């Protein structure tokens, strides 16, 4: 029942939100609903409760509405459940036109994400995969920045082409299953020949690679992150990119083991190129949002490279890092949004000396920045340590090249901290005030999570050991 509730609460509350006339009521209602989801998400962590749900859906097609939660799903369900209240709380003071529609679409996105991480039926998975995309399209196109229509459309077309190819792949596998079923167990049981795998692998992988995104399919991302309203960007980079990684772990590698081994090198090399490339571009950015966007590409590139190195220890790292990267990047976006809301600019060149005016924000950002470069005692350290360990076992040279991105990551992250918070007081920051209480509160919670899991990561490592649906 719990998995169903995790989807049902956002869906029902989203529909109700659309009918709320008062903007503040919508805002509060969304916050309450997402907190309720969070409570169930935390409850789902308990090892004893029944974590599957199964009901008839499309008997003619052999598809069932079946959901299940294992360690991998739990990690991402928890991330999704935490992110939404965090996003709603930290952007509480932002006003959106037609805010009922805004919050309704946000909650629908949450339902889609939850469904993606819970579905254990491939057609259902595809449905949720799309359900997560469509509300985001409207969110970015209506409430986004100046160039929003073209940029969001590029994003939409990119991902839509990917999903259609995946649909063909799904159908292809479906007709190979002896019992004509979309269930994950039937897909896992398939004995595919090498040539069958080679075709179907790419049909799935392109969809996932676009979502992650992996070089050279990443071109939609920086623009989309920059033009989206920050609340949506947080979800995009904090949670949505994890859909791609999750899908690779859950669907791609177990179904196509031969093709995975065959193409692993190509994908790892593309991922590593993407890491270095994104890090180098990040160094040259003058805009907080674009910097975080490129840094996100670099982090995701590392995760994907480690995934295809197929080492258990690396995989544990990836799973931990999916959660941690989500938390850290949302924290960075909150800071970026706070600065933009207060000062009206996101450019480093116009900022400076903010620490004198907003010391609390400065301290919190520094912790987030340390987490972004994976310093020990922050949550990201454990994940990156395990990931590099896996990559090192796979190939020394690749691990070495990928390691450069750690240094580059430190360069751009610390450079950002320095330019915004230290140095001469810039005209724009002359009249800056401390950030609002709600933003402080949210950031403090995130920082506690960051340091908490940095010091004692064992619960997360335990969670990653249980990954069979």
């Amino acid at each position, binding site marked *: 029942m719990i998995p169903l509730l995790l989807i049902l609460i956002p869906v029902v509350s989203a529909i109700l939100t659309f009918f709320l006339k008062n903007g503040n009521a919508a805002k509060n209602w969304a916050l309450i609903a997402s907190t309720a989801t969070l409570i169930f998400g935390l409850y789902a962590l308990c090892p004893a409760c029944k974590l599957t749900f199964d009901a008839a859906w499309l008997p003619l097609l052999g598809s069932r509405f079946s959901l299940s939660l294992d360690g991998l799903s739990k990690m991402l369900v928890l991330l999704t459940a935490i992110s939404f209240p965090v996003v709603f709380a930290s952007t509480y003071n932002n006003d959106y036109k037609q805010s009922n529609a805004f919050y309704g679409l946000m909650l629908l996105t949450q339902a889609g994400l939850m469904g993606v991480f819970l579905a254990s039926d491939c057609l259902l998975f595809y449905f949720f995969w*799309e359900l997560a995309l469509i509300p985001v399209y409207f969110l970015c*196109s209506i409430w986004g920045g100046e160039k929003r229509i073209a940029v969001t459309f590029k994003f*939409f077309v990119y991902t*839509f082409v990917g999903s*259609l*190819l995946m649909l063909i792949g799904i159908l292809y596998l479906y007709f190979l299953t002896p019992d004509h079923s979309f269930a994950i167990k039937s897909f896992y049981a398939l004995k595919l020949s090498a040539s069958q795998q080679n075709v179907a692998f790419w049909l799935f992988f392109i969809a996932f690679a676009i979502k992650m995104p992996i070089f050279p399919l990443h071109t939609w991302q920086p623009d989309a992150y920059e033009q989206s309203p920050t609340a949506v960007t947080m979800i995009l980079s904090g949670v949505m990119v994890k859909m791609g990684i999750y899908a690779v772990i859950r669907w791609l590698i177990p179904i196509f083991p031969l093709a995975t081994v065959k193409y692993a090198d190509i994908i790892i090399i593309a991922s590593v190129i993407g890491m270095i490339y994104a890090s180098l571009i990040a160094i040259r950015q003058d805009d907080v949002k674009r910097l975080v966007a490129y840094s996100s590409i670099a982090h995701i590139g590392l995760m994907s490279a480690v995934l295809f190195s197929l080492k258990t220890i690396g995989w544990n790292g990836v799973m931990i890092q999916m959660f941690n990267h989500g938390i850290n990047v949302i924290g960075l976006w909150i800071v970026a949004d706070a600065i933009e809301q207060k000062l009206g600019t996101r450019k480093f060149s116009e900022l400076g000396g903010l620490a004198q005016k907003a010391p609390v924000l400065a301290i919190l950002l520094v912790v987030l920045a340390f987490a972004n470069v994976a310093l020990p005692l922050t949550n990201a350290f454990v994940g990156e340590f395990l990931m590099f360990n896996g990559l090192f076992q796979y190939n020394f040279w690749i691990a070495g090249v990928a390691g450069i991105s750690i240094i580059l990551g430190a360069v751009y992250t610390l450079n950002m901290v320095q330019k915004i918070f230290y140095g001469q007081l810039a005209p724009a920051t002359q009249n800056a005030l401390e950030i609002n209480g709600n933003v402080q509160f949210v950031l403090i919670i995130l920082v506690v999570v960051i340091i908490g899991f940095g010091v004692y990561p064992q619960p997360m490592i335990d969670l990653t050991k249980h990954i069979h649906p």
Partner: protein
Amino acid sequence: MNAIILSALCGVVMMFSGILLKNKSAIKYVAIAALLVLILGNFLQFYGVYTIDIDSKGLLAFDRTGLFFNTIIFVATLVYFILSGSDMERVGPDVAEYFALIFFVLCGVTVLTSFNGLLMFFIGIEILSIPLYILTGSDKKNLKSNEASLKYFLMGSFSTGILLMGITLIYGATGSFGLQSTTMKSAITGFSSAGILAPVGLVLLFISMCFKVSAAPFHFWAPDVYDGAPSVFTSFMATIVKAAGFFAFIKLFAAKSADFGPGPAWQLILYIIIVATLLIGNITAVFQQSVKRMLAYSSIAQAGFMLFALYSTNEFTKDGILLYTAAYSFATIGIFSILTKMEDYSLDGFNGLSKSQPVLAFTNTVFFLSLSGIPLTAGFFAKYYMLASAIKGGGSLSLVIIAVLFAAVSVYYYFKVIQAIYFKEGVAATNTPITSNFKVALIVLAAIIIILGIYPTALLGFYYF
């Protein structure tokens, strides 16, 4: 048999209602009532009750698929009457006659869903087509409408000639109008025993049917006719008539697949036609500025997807064509009913519709999402079944990949309308006041599309159980 007789009778009733009733909206209600009687009659037959039973000497055969297809067509027509009935009044003074002509078209549809030989097939096609030539030209004072009508009539007659020639050749080769004769089988599988007559006849039949369903390269009439005809009737032609044409096409060529499985040569021809249809329909639609003309090209593109049902014949085909008809017709009728109420048919005419008419904006968006085949709308399952039938048939994966890439192209032009509605500033003006009844009808239609998108068993369940 119920539906054939009743639809013809309804047509006659509508003709006389024009003389007896002077109030135009009363005529619309008579038409809706007549259509309800028709639906009831068809439904009774679907469940085995024959109120009118005439022995057709084997010329007609009624099966569940045909009767169920009739039901979908009638319900779509009902939706069309409810949404667009009042727009017909604005075309010209002879409202009753328009309704009468539409009922005659429906009569043609019912013949096409139940023919059991080439003779009835030909009669069905003719009953279907002739009223359409009149409807296309019904805006008498508009030159574009006249031109479209004349063009449609000339091209239509020409294709009918080809059709008749084909039937004659097949009759000459086989000595029968029947579909099951063994010579027909050999005509399709090869050029051997039946000589040259039957295969050539079959190719002529195929060409003329491609013309009727506007498959490339026989599509040239469609954009001009759809654009020139009064918008209310374009809606009817592009949906109900086209779907009926497809049904007949499939019934003619594929329904007997037990006798002659689709051979490789056959699939190659269709492969080329599908790709050409998708290419021409989609790529040309991208460049249109008028929403009406864009929909004309998009209906060619949709025909490309419906041709999948011919490409491979298996159990998905039948469900697929039923679902596709419902999804495509409902969405397109909805879009056209909104379009006819817009002041400006260009894309910019929709700018800012979400501010001035939120209900129209929302439902229009649902309809366009359904046409693009986005999940959670009926259009997704329609496309899903078509792709599934092709993959299941062991057909070429490249065809399926080409098709989905074109589906992505179609998203481009469908979403341009959604972008205009929601993301652009402007004052989208309507040419008539929007009644609350119209809004309710649109919301019900959008709800049906979403329900079919989540749970298509709601429709197919009727068929199977």
